[in-house]
């Protein structure tokens, strides 16, 4: 991968590619693809051009987007978090158990549980030194089981405050979208402006160097997984609020894969050291719009899955185009 840097005496590697336009596409591929897909829909989908479509896609992308933002941070540290779906389920499973004490209390407990799962992952990765994919795989398997044990069968939740959280709006903008936007802004701020964000990308870029530079590597790693778990729990709660029900068996199933795909399509490399927030948002929107487009046109499940597979590979291929061409 890094053949160009294998040698200290390597010639300076240029920022711009031999074909600048190709490089531009690489960096902005996700936006181009998103624009292209919107365009296709504008032409080919009935009733696509409407405020409602926009609102709907934004609402539906919310859970995946919030999870993907946390995932982007984890991937930035050269990690990965497979447990997010199970964490969503745990958070959603806890809501009906505590909603009797008040909406806020139930939400607090759920998010706290998510943070605890994140803490466990963070300690395993940051302190014990377990491979992120394995640590979070274990938590994913055990966590889904725990969610089912806590939650039992699917429960409808009719608490008015909770229902309002899921379907209420302010100035016509749904709360869930506002929350997602706030989370995105916060994560952007963390990455670009905060000390933590700087340390995070440095650790992802070269962990040993960051250690020797006196950065609190463990603390940053643990914080990152806690934030990711916390955001996953928030996503789980919002999804439960929107469907006014908590279904621990099915909530968040395979969301880890959608979130990782959104992050990677958005241009954040799995090798860490970079976090692209706008790209992640666009990546999540792209995945959402692909799903929506396939539904709009009543594409059968089989074709839909094959189409998704091809689109995902093509999107990542385009992004890596120049890196392959460097040889």
């Amino acid at each position, binding site marked *: 991968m890094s053949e160009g840097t294998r040698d200290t005496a390597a010639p300076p590697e240029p920022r711009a590619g031999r074909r600048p336009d190709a490089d531009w596409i690489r960096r902005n591929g996700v936006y181009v693809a998103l624009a292209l897909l919107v365009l296709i829909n504008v032409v080919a989908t009935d009733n696509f051009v409407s405020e409602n479509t926009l609102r*709907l896609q934004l*609402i539906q992308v919310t859970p995946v987007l919030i999870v993907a933002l946390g995932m982007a941070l984890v991937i930035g540290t050269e990690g990965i978090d497979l447990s997010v779906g199970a964490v969503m389920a745990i958070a959603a499973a806890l809501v*009906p*158990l505590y909603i009797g*004490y008040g909406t806020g209390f139930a939400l607090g407990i759920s998010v706290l*549980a998510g943070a605890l799962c994140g803490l466990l992952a963070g300690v395993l990765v940051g302190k014990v030194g377990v491979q992120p994919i394995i640590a979070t795989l274990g938590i994913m398997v055990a966590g889904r089981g725990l969610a089912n044990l806590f939650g039992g069968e699917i429960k409808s939740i*009719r608490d008015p405050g909770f229902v309002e959280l899921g379907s209420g709006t302010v100035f016509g903008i749904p709360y869930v979208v506002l929350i997602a936007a706030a989370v995105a802004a916060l994560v952007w701020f963390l990455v670009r402006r905060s000390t933590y964000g700087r340390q995070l990308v440095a650790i992802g870029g070269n962990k040993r160097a960051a250690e020797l530079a006196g950065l609190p590597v463990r603390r940053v790693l643990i914080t990152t997984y806690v934030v990711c778990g916390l955001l996953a729990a928030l996503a789980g709660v919002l999804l439960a609020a929107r469907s006014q*029900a908590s279904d621990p068996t099915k909530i968040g199933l395979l969301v880890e894969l959608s979130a990782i795909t959104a992050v990677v399509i958005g241009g954040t490399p799995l090798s860490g050291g970079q976090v692209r927030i706008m790209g992640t948002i666009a990546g999540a929107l792209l995945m959402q719009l692909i799903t929506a487009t396939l539904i709009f046109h009543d594409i059968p499940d089989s074709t839909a899955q094959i189409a998704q597979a091809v689109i995902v590979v093509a999107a990542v291929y385009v992004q890596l185009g120049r890196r392959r061409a460097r040889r």
Partner: protein
Amino acid sequence: MTRSSFPRSWRVLASAAVLGAALAGCTNPGDDQSGSSPSAQGGGDDQVVKESSGEGCTLEAYGAEKLDLTDAVVGFSQSEPDTAAFRAAETKSIRDAATEAGVKDLLVTNANNELPKQIADIQNMLSQGADFLIVAPVNSDGLDPALTAAKNAGVPVLTVDRKVTNTHCEDYVAFLGSDFRDQGKRAADALNTVTEGEAKVAVLLGASGNNVTDDRNAGFKEQVQAEYPGLEIVAEQTANFARDEGQAVAEQLLQSNPDISAIYAHNDEMALGAVTAVQAAGLQPGEDVKIVSIDGTRNAVQAIVDGQINAVIESNPRFGPLAFDTAQKFYAGEEIAEDVIISDDEYNRDNAEANLGKAF
């Protein structure tokens, strides 16, 4: 990774586990907010046999030994997690009926929707000494090794809620359950009634590859094709039997096809999701968009009472009494028909309130 950090990380683990247990153990004071738990439902509504068809099967023909159930170990292999209301009610019903029938020991396993696990579960129960098996199959096909093992062990198998494609009276005694195809047909009838014969219908499919999905879809389509030219199916999309997916898919469909006037969901969960979706689209569920589904969960029947769902075709999960009754008859030497089809009710605006207690 210094040595001293190791126990410390364990303390964190331990405290997380304790907190988790505390969270789960806490009781909830405002329980009425959440859906009803199985225990609150009481015995509910026992199944009634609608028709018994196919060749009969006797103890002799099956080649099994006579057995007194009170001396027997009975195994029940559940197919899907008990987090689904249907499955919870079914398991509970079997457990209750087993107690009632006074069986010596009841083994219960849950295959978590995995066929290989169900095969293993059944084989494990056989090696644990099960004398009689009640199986809710994960899938109609593919249980062959488990059924063969039971046959070799001389253990009769009763399948409930889903029929297997194996040989009757050789691989299994009988099938107790609903006719999913018929449920689909009746859903079409109900939809026709509530829409007065004119509608653009969106179908929320169950999980792909599941034969309940296939039957409920095929029955519905056959009936629509044969009887109701006014019903036009404009979209069929899978929502995997899940409420949130039902909601998401219905939202998308309503957006791209605003003239959808009816939704047929393969189960109640997706229908409940569709209710929320219709509301979110600024329409009145049950009025602007008619909704019909299959199952008969308490939440869905309540939604009929609330005027949000128009009709639910029941799929009665309470197989316990019928199953043990059938077993007793079988061991008493009576002939058991291949298909013991139960009569499923229908919930609609006229009877939902009165029958709410029957729902599971």
